[in-house]
């Protein structure tokens, strides 16, 4: 009796989908929607989050026949989410759809204050959070899609080289080299911005 009331497992849902039951995918969508949105929100501008999250689920659906269940569905879906974000930036950088704005004096002030001792107080101010977001976005927009993704995963999220390599489908050596170079580029960008 208990088994009838329990929710179907991921494997069971996937088997049903692969047997032709398209509607069973809704179970996976509802179950993992929040985790996917969390990943997408971190990598993609807020305006494009919904569309990109949709793409993640559509890609996952199309790739289901290749799911082997080795590391669990959530891990597999997270990889698809990160790679969809990576593709978003590759496409965006190719078409150069982002605005090449410069940092305002407010942003430069924020950066100056971070380096000085006022940083802890500054984090609590709503207005400075906005500036901080804009500075980060400004700097990341000036990096390539590859540098951006590796910097976000390794430097900002704190993933290991191996984890980032799995997410991006790169070798560990490539992740380490890219990570080092992109950190140097970011530092150069920010240093330059407060010197001017």
């Amino acid at each position, binding site marked *: 009796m208990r088994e009838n009331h329990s929710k179907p497992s991921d494997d069971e849902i996937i088997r049903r989908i692969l047997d032709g039951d398209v509607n069973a995918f809704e179970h996976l969508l509802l179950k993992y929607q929040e985790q996917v949105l969390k990943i997408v929100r971190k990598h993609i501008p807020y305006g494009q989050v919904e569309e990109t999250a949709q793409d993640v689920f559509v890609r996952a659906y199309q790739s289901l026949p290749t799911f082997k269940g080795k590391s669990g569905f959530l891990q597999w879906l997270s990889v698809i989410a990160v790679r969809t974000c990576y593709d978003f930036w590759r496409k965006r950088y190719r078409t150069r759809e982002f605005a090449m704005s410069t940092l305002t004096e407010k942003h430069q002030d924020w950066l100056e204050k971070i380096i000085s001792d006022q940083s802890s107080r500054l*984090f609590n101010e709503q207005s400075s959070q906005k500036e*901080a977001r804009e500075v*980060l976005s400004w700097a990341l927009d000036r990096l390539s899609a590859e540098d951006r993704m590796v910097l976000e995963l390794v430097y900002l999220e704190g993933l290991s080289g191996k984890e980032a390599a799995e997410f991006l489908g790169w070798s560990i050596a490539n992740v380490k080299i890219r990570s080092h170079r992109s950190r140097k580029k970011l530092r150069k960008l920010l240093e330059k911005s*407060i010197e001017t």
Partner: protein
Amino acid sequence: MKSSKWDDIKVKQALKAVYNAKENNGPEVSEQFEAQVMRRVRALGPIYFSPDYFSLFEQYFWRLVPVTAALIIVLVAWTIQFDFTSEFDLATIFMNNPISFDLIQQLLI
């Protein structure tokens, strides 16, 4: 504006805080989100598991590479040690069949 002394740790902490806050501060998705995804999924139609023979082969390819490499090394060593076109073997074959021998000799010249 003059730059203060650059502090990697402080800048990293500040940027990390901003980045991690993005996860929770973002806007909620619209109520139609699930319906839109399911519409796109239904438009694709049912998907079925079909064994992809290339990927099945790919799975074993790299496992077989060391064995193949070892086999190649052994074969090369064997070929060098026991000369593949040993003159003695050739002579034995052609002595038993002088017509072919002449023909081959003609061709080689």
